[in-house]
């Protein structure tokens, strides 16, 4: 059987899609405008969580409103993203920490409001970013 598409479902799908477009644009602007890598690292998480959830809900709603039963397979995208996105971010953060420590920076930076003090006698060892597993 083929039900005609529900106008309410289409409205919700359209709203969810526009919302995800706005969220992705905000994430891209954060990627471009934030001033440090460790700040920029947080911006793409917006796209892989909030926008991906909105698009997935829109897709499930759209393919379920055709009268052929629930279409839940798009949830696989959410499952894959929620497994892979933190791993990528973590490994990339460790790579950035390792590379910038090898370049001679003192990371993590001192807390706000404290004077930047020289590091204690032992300089941060260049291999301390290597502890991945």
């Amino acid at each position, binding site marked *: 059987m083929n039900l005609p*598409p529900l*106008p309410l479902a*289409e*409205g919700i*799908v*359209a*709203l969810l*899609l*526009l919302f*995800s*477009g*706005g969220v*992705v*644009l905000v*994430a*891209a*602007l954060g*990627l*471009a405008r934030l001033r440090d*890598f460790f700040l*920029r*690292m947080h*911006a*793409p998480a917006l*796209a*892989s969580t909030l*926008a*991906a959830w909105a*698009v*997935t809900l*829109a*897709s499930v709603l*759209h*393919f379920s409103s055709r009268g052929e039963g629930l*279409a839940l*397979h*798009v949830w*696989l*995208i959410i499952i*894959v*993203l929620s497994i*892979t*996105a933190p*791993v*990528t971010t973590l*490994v*990339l953060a*460790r*790579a*950035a920490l*390792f*590379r*910038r420590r090898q370049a001679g920076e003192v990371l993590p930076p001192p807390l706000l409001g404290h004077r930047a003090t020289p590091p204690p006698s032992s300089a941060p060892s260049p291999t301390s*970013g*290597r502890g*991945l597993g």
Partner: protein
Amino acid sequence: MSPWLSWAITATLVLYFGAMGVAAWRLFRGPAAQDRVLALDFIYVVGMLAMLVLAIRYDSEMYFEGALLMALFGFVSSMALAKFLLRGEVIE
């Protein structure tokens, strides 16, 4: 498909490609290599979302497999690049 859902899909795709353009700016300019890897990973995710939106646009579920493959290959390539930045080699 009502015309305003079609309009919303077009607007969403325009927003996505604007975001991809901004990320491509970061990809080409990025001061360090890890910025470029981050921007590439972001472009992968946005391309995958665009694939899902096209699935709604053309009312076809064939795009879903493509989106899943893009998610997986984006993860593998970002992981390989990050491991390369971390160790200097991909497979130990």
